């Protein structure tokens, strides 16, 4: 939050303190992004680097500046790329809804627990986050593979007579995503639900509302900002996810993060990889915009 008085002139030490992180981010955050944009409008060539320069003085006059939208047209015309974008959106959306379904009751339960229990329950939600993300995703391989724990259990119980193929399918990707992103859903929901004024709930109950009705008409609408925050915190990283589909998904699991990786390293087509990345970012601008508007509104309220 900006302080009330604005300082017309900055002290030297303030300038200095500001200039260092500013310069770092300009060089290592903004500049790389501009380079991606630049390469996405260059022609691919078989050379090192594998793209044409935007400006080349050695070319004949009038053609020294060269840019093309061909890479974007190529990506958008290709059914496979479009399908991958849609598939990423769908996978992320389903994973988000599953997280909400599991996370909401948990967040509600934590918020309604006694103070001592609450801090333990919260710590237990955060704790897995401090262990390795990759290893937590890997843990599911031992559970889901055809001779894994889950299949052995189901076979032993006689529920199935042949192992289920779960590992290397979209089902495994869903499980991995819900597992990895569940804390991101629970924490903002909890932060919202814990502030909920219990007097409102008591008033509703005193006026004769049944618990389910009180929940539907009072709790749920009031927790809506928390639901939005949680959903976006899951949805945004899930769209560009690379590790989970790479470890748990099959060859038919189309996710855009993986395509960028493969396009870059396997096909070495930098212009197309850059165009795919730029389109992914455009896709993300909508949920990010909603998130920032919501964040600034929440910030000005509190």
């Amino acid at each position, binding site marked *: 939050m900006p*302080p009330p*008085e*604005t*300082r017309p002139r*900055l002290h030297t*030490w303030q300038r200095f*303190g*500001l200039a260092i*992180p*500013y310069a*770092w*981010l300009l060089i*290592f*955050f903004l*500049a*790389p*992004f501009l380079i*991606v944009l630049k390469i996405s409008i260059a022609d691919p060539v078989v050379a090192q680097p594998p793209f044409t320069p935007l400006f080349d003085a050695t070319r004949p006059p009038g053609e020294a500046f060269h840019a093309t939208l061909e890479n974007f047209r190529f990506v958008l015309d290709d059914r496979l790329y479009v399908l991958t974008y849609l598939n990423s959106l769908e996978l992320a959306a389903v994973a988000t809804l599953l997280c909400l379904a*599991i*996370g909401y*009751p*948990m967040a509600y*339960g*934590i918020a*309604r627990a006694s103070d001592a229990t609450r801090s333990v329950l919260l710590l*237990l939600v955060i*704790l897995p986050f*401090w*262990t*390795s993300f990759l*290893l*937590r995703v*890997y*843990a599911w391989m*031992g*559970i889901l*593979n055809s001779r894994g*724990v889950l299949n*052995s259990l189901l076979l032993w119980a006689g529920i199935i007579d042949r192992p289920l193929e779960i590992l290397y399918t979209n089902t495994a990707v869903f499980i991995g995503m819900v*597992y990895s992103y*569940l804390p991101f859903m629970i924490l903002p929901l909890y932060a919202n639900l814990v502030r909920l004024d219990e007097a409102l709930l008591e008033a509703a109950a005193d006026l004769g509302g049944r618990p389910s009705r009180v929940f539907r008409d009072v709790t749920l609408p009031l927790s809506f900002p928390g639901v939005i925050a949680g959903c976006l915190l899951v949805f*945004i*990283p899930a*769209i*560009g*996810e*690379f*590790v989970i589909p*790479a*470890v748990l998904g099959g060859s038919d699991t189309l996710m855009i993060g993986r395509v*960028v*990786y493969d396009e*870059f390293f396997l096909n070495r087509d930098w212009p197309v*990889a*850059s165009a795919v*990345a730029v389109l*992914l*970012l455009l896709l993300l601008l909508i949920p990010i915009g909603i*998130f*920032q508007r919501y964040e600034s509104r929440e910030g000005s309220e509190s």
Partner: protein
Amino acid sequence: MRKRSTFLLTAMVFGYAFLYIPLVLVVLYSFNDSRLVTVWGGFSLRWYGELLRSGDVLSAAWLSVRIATVSATGATVLGTLAGFALARIGRFRGRALFTTMIAAPLVMPEVITGLSLLLLFVTLQQQIGWPATRGATTITIAHITFSTAYVAVIVRSRLASVDMSLEEAAMDLGGRPFRVVRDITLPLIAPAILSGWLLAFTLSLDDLVISSFVSGPGATTLPMLIFSKVRLGVTPDVNALATIIIGLVAIGVVAAGLVLRRRPAWRQTE
């Protein structure tokens, strides 16, 4: 006093079981002598032995720890400065761009951050000849860049909640700005700086995607090594490694809990 519904209790038990069963199973497998996860071959420390004997795991872990230490420290310095700028300097030219550059890495997909940084390093190499090779240095730079944003957000929100009248009083009493920051503000926000460092350290240790993009042939971090192993399927020595990491985190959390409990009373009221 409170009526707790069976539904809520069931949902919570299920939720926590979901979060912890995979971790418990990994710990169990790590002591299993058999290579197959479902066959219990008896208790054994065999995989720990194999882990300690494999030089590549140890050198990758050491590289990861070194990169995480340096990048967390760098990110803490830059992030604290950025947090100060955002919380304490009202208006300056380019504030909107600065705010965006701080917020953007938090939502940027890792593949895009990794790809763009690699393209920057390749371009720089062609233009000015630096960095000559990609490896530990480029990974460290990449990690500093994305961790700075997290530290800045933590420090900024802490500064926003610190009472500015303390700083103003110190200024009124004739303290020079630098001294006020050193003697008043920094001690007040020390917990935020520490948690920023820890978060940056964890993020760096954990990063696979960005490291894979910006690394060169010589440098393999621990997540990169694990990734190359698990792509081939379940390997028991990774279970042992996971167990060690889970153990370290558990020890760290208990230690942090003890330190916080001993915090002086005047700080707990904040």
